[in-house]
């Protein structure tokens, strides 16, 4: 038993590090570090995406024939870990990680040829139309209606929490094509262009003052029938594939550990008010220690999953814990950061971005200014993508057999 990477993997790690050293410029690092929302804005991600696309390291979860780099699960893990440690920006995952793999798996050759290259080039920016006002945790209750009229679908209804819909030119949506059958069976997976009169987007600002999500309305919006993925009624199966694809190996712990390292550095600089620094504060230092122990254990959980995948075996049931563990850890880490900064952690900037020349002035430090909006936005980690409560119910049933 060991936790070591093979010599080949270590060589790959070295290659990734050299690449990141070379290509991850100061603007990208600043943009990534100073983004308090869940997703990084396109002004940063597009540049990073282009750099990775040029290297062929962008669509890491796609098959080689569709443009993936052909990495092993271990290489994929190493790449993500090094990116997290280096502070690379996140990527527009809605195209690259969500709809991309769906098109790779379920798409026709024509659909692949049409959509996949434009995801890689960044020409298309995707958003996801899943939740609706009446269908949150109960996703199968979606009502947005798509009716086949000749060679197109006419779409009516609304979607909510559509991340970056205001940047997107395409949306992949779960729509109801057959209201007469059992609810899961009447759902289809449809690609709809955003730039048309029948689609409108209205912003929903978070309590942290960030505009990431929207409500998206369809009023006789149209899309060619060719943009149906799979068959009518297959939408629920595809939605489940998409979720399972997300769970095919993860690399969340390194980013959490990196954040804890940053908090430790800040604590060494943050004045305690009594001629010392906060690193010696008994509460802050113990919370830091506890969170680090938990994140380190979680890192090994992820490596145990990786080891299974690397051997070509199916991932173990621990995968079900990844989202639950990482989102709760992350919230506690974000709380610690706010608490570290005392009164300075209570500033909450109204304008964005918090990087570059337009960033508003901070009180104390940029890290202090970022702590409150990051904490507030982070409350969503236990809500989106299957809330904690939904996750636990699934784990209780499917893993524990309760």
């Amino acid at each position: 038993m060991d936790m070591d990477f093979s010599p080949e993997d270590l060589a790959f790690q070295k290659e990734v590090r050299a690449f990141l050293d070379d290509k991850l410029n100061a603007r990208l690092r600043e943009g990534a570090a100073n983004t308090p929302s869940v997703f990084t804005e396109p002004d940063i991600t597009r540049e990073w995406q282009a750099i990775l696309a040029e290297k062929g390291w962008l669509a890491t979860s796609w098959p080689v024939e569709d443009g993936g780099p052909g990495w092993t699960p271990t290489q994929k893990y190493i790449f993500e870990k090094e990116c997290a440690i280096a502070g690379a920006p996140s990527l527009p995952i809605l195209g690259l990680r969500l709809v991309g793999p769906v098109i790779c798996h379920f798409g026709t050759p024509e659909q692949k040829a049409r959509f996949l290259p434009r995801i890689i080039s960044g020409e298309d920016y995707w958003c996801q139309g899943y939740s609706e006002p009446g269908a949150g945790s109960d996703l199968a209750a979606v009502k947005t209606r798509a009716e086949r009229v000749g060679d197109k679908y006419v779409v009516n209804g609304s979607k909510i929490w559509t991340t970056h819909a205001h940047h997107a030119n395409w949306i992949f949506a779960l729509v109801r094509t057959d209201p007469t059958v059992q609810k899961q069976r009447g759902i289809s997976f449809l690609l709809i262009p955003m730039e048309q009169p029948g689609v409108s987007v209205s912003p929903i600002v978070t309590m942290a003052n960030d505009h990431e999500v929207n409500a998206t309305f369809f009023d006789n919006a149209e899309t060619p029938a060719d943009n149906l993925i799979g068959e009518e009624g297959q939408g629920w199966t595809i939605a489940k594939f998409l979720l399972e694809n997300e769970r095919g190996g993860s690399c969340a712990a390194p980013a959490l550990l990196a954040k804890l390292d940053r908090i430790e550095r800040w604590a060494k600089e943050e004045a305690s008010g009594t001629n010392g620094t906060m690193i010696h504060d008994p509460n802050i230092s113990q919370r830091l220690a506890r969170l680090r122990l938990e994140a380190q254990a979680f890192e090994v959980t992820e490596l145990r999953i990786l080891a299974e995948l690397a051997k070509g075996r199916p991932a173990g049931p621990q995968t079900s814990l990844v989202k639950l563990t990482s989102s709760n850890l992350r919230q506690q880490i974000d709380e610690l950061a706010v608490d570290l900064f005392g009164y300075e952690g209570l500033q909450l900037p109204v304008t964005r971005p918090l990087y570059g020349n337009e960033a508003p002035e901070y009180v104390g430090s940029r890290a202090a200014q970022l702590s409150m909006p990051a904490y507030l936005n982070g409350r969503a980690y236990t809500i989106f993508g299957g809330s904690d409560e939904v996750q636990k119910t699934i784990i209780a049933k499917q893993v524990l057999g309760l």
Partner: protein
Amino acid sequence: MNFDLDENQELFKAAVERFCQGQDVATRRAARALPGGIDRARWKELAELGLIGLAAGEDDGGMGGSHGDLAVVAQALGHAQAVEPWLECAFLPARLLAGSAHLEGVIAGETIAAFAFAEPGRRFMLEAQGVKVRGGKLTGTKQFVLGGGAADIFVVTAEEDGKTGLFVVDAKAAEVEVRPYPVADGGVAAIVTFHDAAAEGPLAADLAAVIDGARLMAAAEMVGIAQRLFADTLEYLKTREQFGQPLGRFQVLQHRMVDAYARVESVQSAILRALLQPAAPMAAIKAHVAENAIWVAHQAVQLHGGMGMSDELGIGHGLKRIVLLSKLFGDPDSDILDYARAA
């Protein structure tokens, strides 16, 4: 033994409820967006209802309200999610300015006073260090001056002769530089730099006693907000349907709400204890209230789902105000540690 509000307290509570009637997310946002973050017409109204004067002594032209009376007001303002910084710009100045001629304008709602107590690099320390008074002139920088963007006068903690005293400085003086910045609850705080500004004082108020009173008011306001968030979440769980039934039918959510209910009752009891027990440890009680109120607010966001995250509902506003109050004059971690060490 009797825990009922008295007749006057019922009247104060009703006055707050009347004052807050019709206030919603939109009106609150509009008030916050004004320069300085305070709607002066509303502030005057608050004064006319006697809710500022209640905090001032009778000798100063106030109504001499007890901590019990004032906690009722703070809790009711919290429950109504009022945006007016009553604790910051009414309670604190009314107490700090005891015996000062400035109090008349404060009680009338014409003068907005902000308390400048926090210094960069000094965390929650109340002893002034970087801000000094020498020969009647005040110098140095304060931050986290709540209401500082709207203030006409500042009440400032400053070091003179090795002691921390309270001084009044005209906010509009040329020697005073005010840089407003937004804070978590949607309000406006300021960094205030004094360059040899003329200072009146020291004032006679007992700073430690005023701060303890403010801790009690912060706790009472948090209790009010927590009760409101709890009630709103309970209502939501009874009406929001998913999987063909109200969310409140799910046992996991039922148990969560029972836990929240227990915490809401605990914090209500805690402030009653703070009011009724002689020499109650205010900072520690505030810490207990804060930790439980934050837990309740986190659950309110979680159980409202995406809606809880949006700025369109009062849920997030409640969380943010609780978080701010939880750190006012010390955060729960530091206050509980102090309490443990004192025991």
